[in-house]
């Protein structure tokens, strides 16, 4: 499996996705589309207060309502130790997860679950919620991240003492942790600079905005065996989280993944599933729970808003001498926002020998932040890439030239310590510079912005199984929900290795009982890590096919080579050794030892880092402050595009989410700490008429860590757009826009103030 051009039959083509017909005809079953006979409906009572002590919950009237079958509150869930658990996946504090899915002593944000009921109909369940009497003691609340970090702010958790500071604080605060990393000596670096830029930046909390609300059905038998059908980014994640939150064995919970209607990181945790299992256990009935959009906004996601300061220093020729950033990231009501990831990624595109990044993870009375596509990176990149643009203006340099002058290459040490392996950042800059977009003329009130971005991409544990069917077709089973066409990629890689047609391979996303453990769909890992597992499983299958041919030919396996989907005798055909196709070997499998399969479980290292550069043209209306995106180009190193159309789709979709983040999306709170825009009407995601076509340029610098050179592609594209848009607007407005979103009132005010 080398990497020369045109040597592949399937990789790099654009076949129709296997699940496509179901999705264009309405047959595909998403989270809310599943029901079992006798299913009852679960609904959640949510706190109307941003911060309140729960003094008592009286459910007598609710439970007396005909049709109500069960109710749960925090008292129904075991208390877990307050600790970060290192598992085979990202570190998680399961006590916090448990307290987030169901409040205990305090409600920490408006929308925090306080109780849940199950009833025979949704209407009865709603009525029951209204009958639950919760006595609250309303506490002072805090929403803004800087306010929350300040002395005297209302403290959410009496047990929170800032980690990462010496000596350890004696007073609890909302600052969960401080993190610092660096290279060289920043003070010396700035002393050596001819030019510096320094500025504060803010971004607002934004939601992942998947169109499918969270949904699940849970059924529990009298012997305690649970089955959960749910929409998530990982059936094994749901199983692990429910197992820990409810004190059940993994083997007692089977999780069946539905089709997933978008996640973007927001479905990497649980909200409803533990409640549904608990209600199903109590009621003896299957329980279905589906969130409303309002609940999705108030109680799930979003990603952190940020308050940041960045300083850059450079020589007259543009060589960066130092970079310094301080990030305050909203964690929501529980610790664990992505400030650390912001620190790691912000400066990553540049070869900086003197750099420092300090991050603060700050809790406030907002829903607990969840992962969102390259979590933590877009905000830091907004600040750094804006500073780079300002620096380019100050130096009178082209912004791409400035980036080229300082671009990270193979061997450059990133602030988090690692030297980059083979990466394609310079290639993205060169391609952007050469692109006709970059030299296209601009009209009045129009300007062009450029920004770059970095995301690590991850590997991790994946399982895959390939089964050869009796007729020579093949099954590929993996354990990762297909969030954007990955089944096509899995089938393509298997077909390539097996040497059979794509149409002969049927990919399936297995439930937790059908395939081995697989870390969730996230971190841009599936085509890389699960794809690697599929390649290895297919290769194991090929080896077994060769062994079967060797049996038939009565020769050592070394005398059998596999090409074009068939066993060939090394040294050519003879009377007894004629080429045996996969179909022929499949047909004779019973005679040669039984069914032919290959199954692997791997922990994939070697995820290639992702870099991208984006170009944005805008026009501003100086009288109203409205911004129109006129033209947009995404350039990214994608390693190897298995299915190029779906790779383009990732680049386009990520960029547009970033455009929304830059221009209009934000969580708006009222004075009582209640979310004021919990719907698509006023949480303004981009609509079709807001956008131009999104041009893409895929650079292929193969990742040596994957058999076909795959790099993750899903997250990098959301990193540059915040600054690409802001830089374009800042140039058009001739004033630096350092606060997102650049909504019309904000731009108009900036134009007035310049």
């Amino acid at each position, binding site marked *: 499996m080398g990497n020369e051009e045109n040597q592949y039959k399937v990789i790099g083509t654009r076949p129709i996705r296997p699940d496509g017909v179901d999705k264009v005809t309405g047959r595909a079953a998403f989270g809310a589309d599943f029901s079992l006979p006798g299913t009852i409906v679960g609904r959640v009572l949510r706190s109307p207060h941003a911060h309140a002590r729960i003094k008592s919950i009286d459910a007598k009237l609710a439970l007396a309502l005909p049709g109500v079958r069960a109710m749960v509150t925090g008292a129904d869930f075991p208390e877990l130790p307050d600790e970060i658990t290192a598992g085979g996946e990202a570190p998680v504090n399961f006590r916090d997860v448990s307290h987030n899915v169901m409040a205990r002593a305090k409600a920490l944000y408006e929308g925090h679950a306080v109780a849940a009921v199950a009833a025979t109909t949704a209407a009865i369940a709603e009525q029951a919620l209204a009958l639950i009497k919760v006595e609250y003691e309303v506490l002072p609340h805090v929403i803004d991240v800087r306010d929350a970090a300040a002395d005297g702010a209302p403290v959410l958790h009496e047990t929170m003492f800032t980690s990462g500071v010496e000596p350890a604080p004696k007073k609890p605060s909302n600052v969960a942790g401080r993190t610092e990393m660096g290279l060289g000596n920043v003070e010396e670096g700035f002393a050596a600079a001819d030019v510096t830029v320094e500025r504060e930046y803010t971004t607002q909390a934004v939601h992942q905005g998947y169109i499918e609300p969270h949904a699940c059905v849970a059924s529990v038998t009298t012997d305690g065996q649970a089955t959960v059908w749910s929409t998530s980014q990982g059936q094994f994640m749901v199983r692990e989280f429910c197992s820990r939150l409810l004190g059940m064995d993994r083997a007692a919970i089977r999780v069946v993944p539905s089709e997933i209607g978008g996640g973007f990181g927001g479905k990497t945790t649980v909200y409803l599933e533990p409640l549904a299992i608990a209600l199903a256990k109590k009621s003896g009935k299957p329980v279905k729970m589906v969130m409303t959009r309002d609940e999705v906004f108030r109680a799930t996601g979003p990603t952190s808003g940020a308050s940041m300061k960045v300083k850059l220093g450079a020589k007259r020729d543009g060589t960066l001498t130092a970079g310094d950033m301080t990030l305050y990231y909203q964690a929501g009501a529980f610790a664990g926002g992505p400030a650390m990831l912001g620190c790691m990624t912000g400066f990553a595109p540049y070869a900086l020998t003197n750099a420092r990044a300090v991050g603060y993870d700050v809790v406030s009375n907002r829903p607990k932040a969840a992962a969102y596509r390259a979590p933590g990176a877009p905000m830091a990149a907004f600040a750094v890439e804006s500073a780079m643009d300002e620096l380019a203006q100050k130096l009178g340099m082209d912004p791409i030239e400035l980036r080229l002058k300082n671009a990270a290459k193979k061997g450059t040490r990133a602030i988090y310590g690692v030297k980059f392996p083979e990466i394609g950042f310079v290639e993205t800059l060169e391609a952007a510079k050469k692109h006709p977009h970059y030299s296209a003329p601009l009209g009045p009130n129009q300007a062009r912005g450029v920004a770059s971005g970095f995301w690590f991409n991850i590997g991790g544990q994946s399982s895959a199984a390939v089964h050869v069917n009796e007729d020579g077709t093949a099954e590929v089973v993996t354990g990762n929900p297909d969030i954007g066409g990955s089944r096509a990629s899995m089938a393509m890689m298997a077909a390539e290795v097996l040497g059979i047609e794509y149409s002969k391979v049927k990919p399936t996303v297995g439930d937790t009982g059908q395939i081995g453990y697989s870390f969730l769909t996230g971190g841009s890992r599936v085509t890389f890590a699960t794809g690697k597992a599929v390649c290895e499983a297919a290769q194991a299958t090929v080896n077994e096919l060769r062994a079967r041919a060797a049996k038939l030919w009565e020769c050592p396996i070394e005398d059998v080579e596999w090409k074009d989907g068939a066993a060939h005798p090394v040294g050519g055909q003879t009377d007894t050794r004629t080429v045996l196709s996969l179909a022929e070997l499949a047909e004779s499998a019973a005679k040669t030892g039984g069914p032919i399969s290959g199954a692997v479980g791997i922990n994939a290292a070697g995820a290639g880092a992702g870099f991208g550069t984006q170009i944005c043209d805008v026009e501003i209306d100086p*009288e*109203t*402050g*409205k911004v129109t995106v006129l033209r947009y180009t995404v350039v990214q190193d994608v390693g190897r595009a298995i299915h190029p159309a779906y790779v383009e789709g990732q680049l386009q979709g990520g960029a547009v989410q970033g455009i929304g983040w830059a*221009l*209009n999306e934000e969580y*708006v709170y009222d004075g009582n700490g209640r979310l*004021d*825009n919990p719907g*698509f*009407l*006023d949480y*303004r995601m*981009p*609509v079709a*008429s*807001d956008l131009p076509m999104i041009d893409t340029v895929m650079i292929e610098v193969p990742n040596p860590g994957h058999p076909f050179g795959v790099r993750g592609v899903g997250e990098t594209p959301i990193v540059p757009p915040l600054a690409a848009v802001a830089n374009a607007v800042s140039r058009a407005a001739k004033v630096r826009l350092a606060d997102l979103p650049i*909504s*019309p*009132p904000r731009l*108009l*005010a900036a134009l007035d103030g310049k």
Partner: protein
Amino acid sequence: MINFAIPTSVDEAVGLLARANGSGRVLAGGTDLLVQLRAGRVSPGIIVDIKRIPDLKAVRHEAGGLRVGAAVSGAELAEHAEVQKHWPGVLEAARLIGSTQVQGRASLGGNLCNASPAADSVPALIAAGVTCTIAGPDGRREVAVEDVVTGPGKTSLAAGEFVVDFLLPARGARTSDAYQRFIPRTEMDIAVVGAAVCLALDANGTVSAARVALGAVAPTVRLVPAAGAALVGTKLEDAALARLAAAASAACDPINDKRGTIEFRTRVAGVLARRVAVLAYDRARSKA
């Protein structure tokens, strides 16, 4: 338990609403009512679907103008060529209510009676001098559109009354109108500011009459006589437009909310009034 009725005549609807003692809600396109029902903001005793009353869905000529049923949807209104020709501002305002899907349902009557200060069609109807027929237990009355809404969510309709239709008055030569709104996106938003202008020109192209109405800048849509007066006797010279913008801004009494600030709304009201006046003027001039 909510009752539901589908009357087939205005009298039947009036009877149903009268018997509901104020707990009846009229259902036309439902694009506001269903959202309010779901959110628990309304809990009517009966919902009266008026879409099967023939007059409520009719568009017919009357006295040189056009009588438009209150339940006619934006998409249906657009299918009448004379609306586009003579009342382009009314049509473009009606067509801005919601998405294509909402256009298939949302009606002028609903947009008015929902009594939102940001309703798109209302400034255009007011600028165009449109009146509406209100039916109720005491018979029918004809009311200027600007007299219907009294505050956010509040109308002058008595219990049991509902809007039956609108009369788009006859349009003389060299008369036309326009409506624009400001929203952060290009679609799917509620107006942050809306401005409608209706102009009549004399043979020389001088404005002989002007009505300017603004949405989303006060508790109700505002007819701004001073803004209209700024244009009368002018050919929309820069000074006249500046006076118009100033008058429009001066008439604003907006709030700060998630959709816009007081300062922004006040300022953009002037900008939009100016732009819309120019558009209406060009239309009127080309309509000899």
